[in-house]
């Protein structure tokens, strides 16, 4: 038999080497092989279906589906409450990006001057709001959702994006992030639903009159990231004149927001400090007063965080301003 040529020989050697290199881990008896693969998590979140809105320069009244709620004076009107519902097992931070095309009108970049201006333009804003007090069941009841929808005020929006026809508009939070509470039993809980809408101002009497063919089309892409859902527990006092050492305990008191009631003050309170080594803290709440006693052992600064669950089942938390301890 003729010996194989040099190229075949080299190929055989290489193939053998590769086979052995693959076989080594399998032959090593005392090693663990962990295979990591991306697993896609399906978020159980629903967003509104494609819908129609009205550019309504004269704010003509629109009656919602319950036949009693009337939207009047809104330059951009949507006659059906639009809701995002989080039914997932995790709380989700909401983001949004809006691309817009327009026909026959221009989009203004600022609200001032649009209503009384001569240009046929609209200042349009995407807005998202937490749908307070509405859960998956009540979201089906128009006698609840319609009045809530009609009562939305632009200044209360948690997320806003000014629509532009030249670039995608990314929504920004006006305060804390808009986080939708995790769902339960496949339904959205209170805190897990957000209203979304377009709102804005339209020129009332532009030089070039409005026509029914004037329109805008906004494509809204929502993004969702796992997050922690909490609501503000109110304001914590900032104790003064603290000095290090025993016998210098001071009270720190929580002032609750209107309408928030701790579910069980004795059981659900959690007080914590940012300096767990040098500050001790103990709940001293009672008789409708929510407070804790803090004792700093060394000089420095720290913060206090309080958490509890409200009677509405929502987790609340508040963090104090920096508290200074003198030496």
């Amino acid at each position, binding site marked *: 038999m003729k010996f194989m040529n040099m190229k075949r020989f080299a190929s055989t050697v290489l193939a053998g080497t590769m086979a052995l290199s693959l076989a080594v881990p399998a032959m090593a008896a005392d090693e663990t092989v962990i295979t990591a693969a991306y697993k*896609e*998590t*399906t*978020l159980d*979140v*629903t*967003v*509104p*279906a*494609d*819908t*129609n*809105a*009205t*550019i*309504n*320069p*004269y*704010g*003509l*009244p629109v*009656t919602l589906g319950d036949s009693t709620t*009337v939207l*009047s*004076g*809104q330059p*951009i*009107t*949507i006659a059906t409450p639009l809701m995002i519902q989080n039914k997932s097992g995790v709380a989700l931070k909401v983001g949004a990006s809006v691309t817009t095309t327009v026909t*026959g*009108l221009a989009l203004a970049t600022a609200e001032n001057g649009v209503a009384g201006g001569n240009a046929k333009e609209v200042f*349009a804003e995407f807005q998202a709001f937490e749908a307070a007090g509405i859960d998956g069941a009540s979201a089906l009841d128009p006698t609840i959702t319609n009045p809530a929808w009609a009562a939305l005020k632009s200044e209360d929006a948690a997320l806003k994006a000014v629509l532009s026809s030249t670039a995608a508009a990314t929504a920004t939070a006006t305060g804390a992030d808009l986080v939708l509470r995790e769902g339960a039993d496949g339904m959205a809980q209170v805190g897990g639903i957000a209203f979304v809408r*377009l709102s804005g101002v339209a020129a*009332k*009497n532009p030089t070039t009159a*409005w*026509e*029914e*063919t*004037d*329109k*805008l*089309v*906004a*494509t*809204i*892409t*929502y*993004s*969702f*990231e796992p997050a922690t859902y909490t609501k503000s527990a109110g304001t914590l006092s900032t104790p003064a004149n603290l000095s290090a050492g025993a016998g210098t305990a001071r009270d720190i008191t929580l002032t609750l927001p209107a309408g928030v009631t701790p579910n069980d003050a004795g059981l659900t309170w959690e007080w914590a400090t940012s300096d767990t080594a040098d500050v001790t803290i103990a709940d001293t709440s009672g008789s409708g007063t929510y407070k804790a006693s803090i004792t700093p052992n060394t000089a420095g600064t720290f913060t206090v965080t309080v958490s509890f669950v409200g009677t509405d089942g929502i987790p609340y938390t508040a963090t104090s301003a920096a508290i200074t301890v003198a030496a």
Partner: protein
Amino acid sequence: MKRKRLLCVVLALALLFSAQSAAAAAEAANERSMIITATTRLPVIEVTVPTTGQVYINPLQLPVDVYGEFETDQIISYPLTIANKSDVALQVDVRVTGAVKSGSDMTLAAAPTNGTGTNKSAFVYFEMKASDPYDPYSVEWDEAYDAAKHIPVTPGGSSKSNVVTLEAMSMYGEVLGGAAFRLTGDAVKTPTNAWTAKDGIDVSIAFTFTPIPFES
């Protein structure tokens, strides 16, 4: 030939993969999207306006039967109404133009005559007030001419903006916005050239309606 087929297959696969990746890029697993299409809604402007009316020049203040009541004013007209059947409130601007009838030697005065003078002249002015849409007799008319509110009838025409505001029709179709108007004034009682049946005027009244946006 084989090479061409291979090339086609490769290209087709490449297109397929690129299309799939584009779709995936359009909406990731943690994204959802929706489209809002906003079209423009315009108000429907519909106002009932009378096409004709009558005015009498009655210099000697003889009693004239107006719907069963005897009037003795020097300028007498049957009040008329306009009714707003629009879904929006309207601002009403008015332009009034007068013309002396052919064959008459009377003139239209630009200011009240107070019944005195020797020229055959009449001062006629337009007055309008918000009213029941269908009852012009429910209006309390002003006692005297007021240049701030009334429009004199002149050959060249006179205008006034925002004379009245007509309320929008209710959501249930009820007409709420109406306004009554009339022509009134005075005339020289005994001019040198006596009044005759040939004397008279034609008055054209043009209304302009401007929608008033609803306030939120």
